[in-house]
């Protein structure tokens, strides 16, 4: 018996199991969750040509920055605005409370026009300096407008010649309000009143101050998950995770005994490494991604199974535990490399061609293949090495790699 080796084994075991118990929870929570788990909206906007304007690179660029301004005003944590390809914009709004209103706001052109009694457009959104949602007269919500210098000049001029007549304020061609002008307004301020809630007034103000979109944006895709369904998905995937893992763990214990224990410890480390790498890659955890993790655990034991089966064959050939283990590892390594590299190719392609959740899934799959190789080849190898070199038993049965020895059978 060499206590030294056994001590090393126990130390590594303790470190991994302890680390797992302490860190698994905070680690899992620190990974960014996808919209399907935390709830939120994913929208794809497509720029389309209109009679006045063709879609070009500049128009899309300007649209992205206007959408950015609009989204930032919503005060969400970590929204995402991304241009996709030539003429598409992806917007992700995690944890949005009222997705319907937010979506309506994104695609709005928000072209503001002041139209005089002749039907002539006298001022536009370009003349604005700022706009705010406010509580106005009679405690009713309204949108206050502040013109820039040139706008103020024009507005004063227009109101001066429109006394007693209406000026219409229109948004995207729809008249919001058309008050009569009582006197010339020289202060460079105006108000849009109407039957608004405070929230509506604020949204309108955001639209106006972020500017109007240069091209028409159509909503091409909208995927919204409510917070309840997200929470529900999260809970269910945790259940599936626990059950799936437990089954794999028990299986390894039953069929490989002490080697199974080693494989299970390697699996714990594998799970931790996977989550850790996902965190540092800033990967997003999605529902298919979690399914991928559960699946990868079922597949991660494959490397261990390959090693243990080789180990078993070598023992059968009459080798000692030590040399059987070394030979088993060496031979299994080639198999593991070749089979996993081919699998990795599927994951790589999925990563390059996939979008959104599919891409996230590919990351999990690829990481799973690589990390399970590392954990099986390195961790399992050293831990088994420690155990076998500690000489605490020479019985292959304990390692799940041979029949019980004759004398033990006789005892029973």
């Amino acid at each position: 018996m060499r206590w030294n080796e056994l001590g090393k084994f126990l130390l590594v075991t303790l470190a991994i199991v302890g680390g797992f118990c302490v860190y698994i929870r905070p680690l899992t929570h620190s990974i960014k969750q996808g919209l399907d788990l935390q709830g939120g909206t994913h929208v794809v906007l497509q720029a389309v040509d209109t009679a006045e304007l063709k879609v070009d690179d500049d128009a899309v660029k300007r649209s992205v920055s206007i959408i950015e301004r609009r989204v930032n005003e919503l005060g969400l944590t970590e929204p995402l605005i991304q241009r996709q390809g030539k003429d598409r914009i992806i917007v992700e709004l995690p944890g949005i409370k009222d997705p319907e209103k937010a979506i309506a706001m994104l695609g709005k052109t928000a072209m503001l026009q002041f139209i005089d009694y002749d039907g002539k457009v006298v001022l536009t959104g370009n003349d604005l300096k700022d706009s705010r949602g406010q509580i106005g007269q009679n405690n009713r919500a309204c949108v206050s407008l502040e013109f820039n210098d040139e706008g103020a000049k024009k507005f004063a001029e227009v109101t001066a010649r429109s006394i007693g007549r209406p000026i219409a304020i229109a948004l995207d061609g729809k008249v919001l309000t058309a008050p009569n002008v009582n006197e010339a307004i020289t202060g460079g301020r105006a108000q849009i009143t109407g039957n608004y809630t405070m929230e509506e007034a604020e949204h309108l103000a955001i639209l106006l101050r972020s500017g109007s979109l240069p091209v028409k944006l159509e909503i091409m895709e909208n995927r919204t998950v409510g917070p309840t369904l997200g929470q529900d998905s999260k809970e269910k995937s945790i259940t599936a995770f626990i059950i799936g893992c437990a089954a794999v763990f028990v299986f390894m214990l039953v069929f490989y005994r002490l080697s199974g224990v080693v494989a299970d410890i390697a699996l714990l480390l594998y799970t931790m490494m996977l989550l850790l790498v996902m965190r540092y890659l800033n990967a997003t955890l999605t529902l298919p991604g979690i399914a991928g993790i559960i699946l990868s655990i079922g597949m991660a034991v494959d490397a261990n199974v390959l090693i243990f089966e080789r180990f078993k064959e070598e023992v059968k050939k009459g080798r000692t535990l030590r040399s059987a283990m070394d030979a088993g590892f060496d031979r299994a390594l080639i198999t593991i490399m070749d089979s996993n590299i081919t699998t990795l190719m599927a994951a790589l392609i999925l990563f390059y061609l996939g979008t959104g959740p599919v891409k996230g899934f590919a990351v999990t799959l690829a990481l799973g293949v690589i990390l399970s190789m590392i954990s099986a080849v390195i961790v399992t190898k050293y831990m088994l090495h420690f155990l076998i070199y500690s000489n605490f038993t020479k019985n292959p049965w304990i390692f799940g790699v041979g029949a019980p020895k004759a004398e033990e059978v006789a005892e029973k």
Partner: protein
Amino acid sequence: MSDLIQKLRFSIVRNYKIFFGITITFLCIGFGSMIMRGFNLGIDFTGGTIMDLYFQRPVKVVELREVMSSQGLGNSIIQLANSDGESSPDVLIRTGIITEAKRREVVEALKAKFGEYEIQRIEQVDATVGGELIEQAVTAIVLSWVLMIAYISLRFEFRFAIAAILALIVDVSVTLSYFSLLQIELDSSFVAALLTVVGYSINSTIVVFDRIRENMKLRRRTETLSDMIDNSIWQTMTRTFYTSLTSLFSVVAIFLWGGETIRNFSFAMLVGFSSGIYTSSLLAAPMWLFLRGKKAGD
């Protein structure tokens, strides 16, 4: 356990007709169904809208149908989740392709009739997305095959690569067959599931081929190629069985407990993995033998 598995031993190469026959029969039925009935394509492919809304009071299908009809969308598919047989607050509506503005109108009409609601899920997809998705999926799978052929040819030989890819084509076809036969809805996650199946199945096939490659070198003159293949398959059979079990544990856990949202996804994996186990242990190696121009028994 492995002794038990070895006791089952029979010649896989010599019985190839049975295994090929089963596969071909199933695929004929599958392809027949694909041609006759096609697929139940989800909105990811066809375009359209799905709204899963939770109202504050239970709602009846008839009432919902009324509102939808008044919006000119009378042919929408309406389902109640967790229904007590007649009404439920949890409503699932699938329409054809409508604009976002129209969808909002519909929602407003529903709100006017049934009161406040909470959004569980909304999915709205434009028609053009579907075509892109199919194109993307086919490119992804074909590209991954090209890469695999290159790698296997490099590490093994070209005929191994072709046999492995043929096995994968069977797996993909089997999975598609199930989805057509059972008319299960195809969505974008199906592509991911299919590629996972491909990744898993190729892994198992390579393990068998690796053994064949090794045994080729050790082969005695007296041993026929067919016997050598049989030996290789059976030497890896315990591993195939164990790994299949642990992978299936995971897939079944996701299928049974992972929730409705990913049920179709996990079903694709379930049938694909099962097919992968079958093709990698029973079909791939005999195919390699035939590609070498040999017959069973040679």
